[in-house]
């Protein structure tokens, strides 16, 4: 596709459920980022992949959060045993260059997760 695609667009989960959020980056983009955005705030870094390698996961808030990109293209962000504080918009971005340095990030429209 022409841009970064995320699915689902909206997800409602009961507290304690597991969720999986999908990101299809732009074809050929080496770098992939996940961000969490609370209402009215800027995006907060979660994790970074260079191809299939997860080089930085320092922003993942707890061990309930897990991300993978097994073939260096599609990525999945999984949240286990969801809590209400996990409610946010989860944004995926990709960029052409390794590390995204000096190369703009292209964002998807996000998945809005609501935990009830």
């Amino acid at each position: 596709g022409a841009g970064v695609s995320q699915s689902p667009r909206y997800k409602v989960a009961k507290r304690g459920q597991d969720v999986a959020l999908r990101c299809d980056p732009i074809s050929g983009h080496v770098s992939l980022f996940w961000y969490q955005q609370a209402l009215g705030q800027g995006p907060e870094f979660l994790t970074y992949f260079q191809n299939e390698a997860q080089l930085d996961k320092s922003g993942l808030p707890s061990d309930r959060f897990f991300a993978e990109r097994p073939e260096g293209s599609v990525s999945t962000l999984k949240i286990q045993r969801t809590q209400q504080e996990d409610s946010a918009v989860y944004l995926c971005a990709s960029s052409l260059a390794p590390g995204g340095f000096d190369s703009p990030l292209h964002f998807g429209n996000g998945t809005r997760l609501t935990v009830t």
Partner: protein
Amino acid sequence: SQQGEEDPQALSIQEGENATMNCSYKTSINNLQWYRQNSGRGLVHLILIRSNEREKHSGRLRVTLDTSKKSSSLLITASRAADTASYFCAFFSGGYNKLIFGAGTRLAVHP
């Protein structure tokens, strides 16, 4: 936690006026980027300015960077209602794989 701050948090202007948004940061940077986000959408890259540049233009956008003050500004000239959005500055911190965003400025342009 954010390492960038933007000012003002919200800005309301009339069409045709100029809008100026400021960003301050705490670390040394190699470049600083500005992004725009329409409500309910992802972020769109607007402009990138390198640390050895002081000013950069793109259409109605003008970005300045003062590395001695660790600050940047985004000027939108002759604003339009379609410019209504949130604007974020962003820079790499802690290595070249963690792009940090400010809290953003919410701009409202009234017809």
